[in-house]
Structure formats: structure tokens, C-alpha cells
């Protein structure tokens, strides 16, 4: 019968297209294939995260497509959060759709969860995703309550002043202190103004 022949042709075509689909992988260009070596390079050359000061600059300059995601619990989020941030659980981050041209910044309380969320999103093929390395703590320490040594050399003073201005933009309270070491002894890394100075020099601007 004519119908039977048509059905056989369709069934064969469906099987062939289905089998080829396995080889083709995914129609989404970004693809789910996880290039672990590439991720490792991004981590080691430090292009995986932003500092709190960089993030503050992005927010102030209204960087296009910026989306800030807070993955702390909702109680902490209700209490206070980075301006413009939305709260999502790690589960939601894992599946939430991401549009082209969006830059995503993740943060958690300390930084570990945000780093893990970064891996989730990168492994989904999302390109422009960063995490706040020191978490919300870093935001509070470096943007909202930055402390600068009174006796800083003049070439570093300029960087500090711009950070202080940024801090005031967000309603922060920058302070000059005599000894940075004592005040910040619980902070693991170097203060972000130092990192910012280093980066600025590295770029040669």
C-alpha cells in the first residue's frame, strides 16, 4: 500500500536523523561540551573572577547586560545585598536561561559557592560569567568600608582616591587608618586597592 511505503520512508528518515543527532551533539552553538583544560586556564590566569571594586565600577558605569546574582540564602539577601542583585539558589543558577550579551557576576557569602556556580555556568557554555572572589564580605570590606593607610606613597594615593569616590557613590564610608595590617588581619588576600593598583600598572594605563 502507498501509505505503508511512505511510513517506511519516514521511519527510516527519523532513525537516520536521530542517529546522526548523536554525532551532531547539540544545536546550541555554545554546546554543553565541557572543556576542562580551558576552564583551568581561565582559573589560573585569573579571568574567572572580579574584585569588589571592579564590580562596583561596572555597576556605577551601568555596564551593558550586567546581571548580578546573589546565591546566599534569602534572609541574608533581604538584610542587604549588592545593589541591583537578584537572588537565585544554586539549583536555579544551574538551569536559569542566559541571554546573549549578558555578563553574569555571581557572589556568595565567602566566595566558595559562587566559584562553584561559576563552574556550573561555564560548563553550560555561558561565556561571560565571573564571581566575586571574596564574596559579599569583600563587597562590605572593600567597597562599603574601605580602609586606606595614611602613609601611602603618592602614586598609590590616586588609585585609593578613586576607590574612595566609588565607595561614596554606593553610600560607603571610606576611612584612613594608621595600620592596615591590624584592621584587616582576618582578610586572607591582599586588599583590593593594592590589586587594583597592580592591575592598572599591568595594563599600562
Amino acid at each position, binding site marked *: 500500500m502507498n*501509505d505503508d511505503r*511512505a*511510513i517506511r520512508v*519516514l521511519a527510516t528518515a527519523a532513525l537516520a536523523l536521530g542517529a546522526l543527532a548523536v554525532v551532531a551533539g547539540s544545536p546550541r552553538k555554545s554546546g554543553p561540551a565541557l572543556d576542562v583544560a580551558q576552564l583551568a586556564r581561565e582559573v589560573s590566569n585569573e579571568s574567572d573572577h572580579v574584585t569588589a571594586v571592579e564590580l562596583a565600577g561596572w555597576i556605577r558605569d551601568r555596564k551593558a547586560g550586567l546581571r548580578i546574582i546573589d546565591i546566599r540564602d534569602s534572609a541574608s539577601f533581604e538584610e542587604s545585598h549588592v545593589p541591583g542583585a537578584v537572588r537565585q539558589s544554586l539549583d536555579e543558577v544551574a538551569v536559569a536561561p542566559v541571554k546573549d550579551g549578558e555578563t553574569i557576576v555571581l557572589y556568595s557569602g565567602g566566595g566558595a559557592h559562587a566559584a562553584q556556580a561559576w563552574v556550573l555556568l561555564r560548563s553550560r557554555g555561558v561565556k561571560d560569567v565571573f564571581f566575586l572572589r571574596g564574596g559579599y564580605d569583600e563587597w562590605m570590606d572593600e567597597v562599603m568600608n574601605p580602609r586606606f593607610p595614611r602613609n601611602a606613597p603618592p602614586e598609590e594615593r590616586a588609585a585609593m582616591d578613586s576607590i574612595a569616590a566609588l565607595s561614596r557613590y554606593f553610600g560607603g564610608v571610606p576611612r584612613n587608618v594608621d595600620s592596615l595590617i591590624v584592621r584587616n588581619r582576618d582578610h586572607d588576600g591582599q586588599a583590593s586597592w593594592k590589586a587594583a593598583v597592580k592591575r592598572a600598572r599591568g595594563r599600562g594605563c
Partner: protein
Amino acid sequence: MRAYSNPYLSGFGLGLVLLSAFVFAGRGLGASGAFASAAAATAAVAAPDATQANDYFARYLSASGKPAIDWLVIELIGVVVGGFISAYLAGRLRRGVEKGPRISNRSRLTLAFAGGGAMGLGAVLARGCTSGQALTGGALLSAGSWLFIGAAFAAAYLAAPFLRKAWT
């Protein structure tokens, strides 16, 4: 009255229709969404303020709270037109009640209304029906749509033995 077409070929045609909806309209097919839109419009005429305050109906109204003509409503009008033309050309237009031999027209119509009501509630909770969830979401490999397909068919098979009198 001509015999119905081969189910696989009709299914293939239906699949192409669904695909063209994806390609040309950027969305899938639906039916329960049209009912929701019509229900929202009815409610908006009867009780404008309460309807605008209703989270479910509000999304089917225009920004000003007026009834809006939804894409799915026009699509469902198309379904009625297409079904009518197909049946007319095949000589299958027939006024009557379809039921099993052991049940009265009245009982059949009562069951049909009740079943429709249950499907209405189910479609609201599941955010779609056989068209919007099963066909559309199924083809897009949505996890919730496949859960819906599984749950709906499992429940229908479990309920069927109790309804034997209505159909056989």
C-alpha cells in the same frame, strides 16, 4: 463517510504544523491557554476589578485590564475551522453524541462536562494540556512536559477500568 487517515501520516503532518509554529511564530501549539484567555475575558466583563487583581487572569488581559485577543485564541478558532473543513470534505460532519452503547446521552454529556472541568483544573495546575505541554513541551524535551505526559496517561489508564460502562 470516508475512513480516517493513517495515524502515522496524520501525526507527521501534525508534527510539521508544530514545527512551522516554532519556525514562523517562535512558539508552539496550545489549547488550554485559549480557554484561559477566554475565561479571563469573561471574568473581566463580569467583574473587572476582581479580575485585574487576580494573578491568574491578569496575565491574559491587556496592560489596561481589558480582555485581549490572545494568539492562542485565534489559533483555536483556526482549529475549529480546519477541523470543520476536513470533516466536511470527508463527509464526516455528523450531529450526535459519541458514547458507549450502555450509557444514556444525558449521562454521557454530564460526564463530558465533568471530565472537561477536571481537565480545566489539571491544565491550570500543569500550565498546559495535551497541546501546550505534551506536544509542544515534549518536542522541546522539557522535563516537566514529559512528567505531565507520564502522569496524565498513567492516571487515565488507572481511571479507565472504572469508566468502562461509559465507553464499551
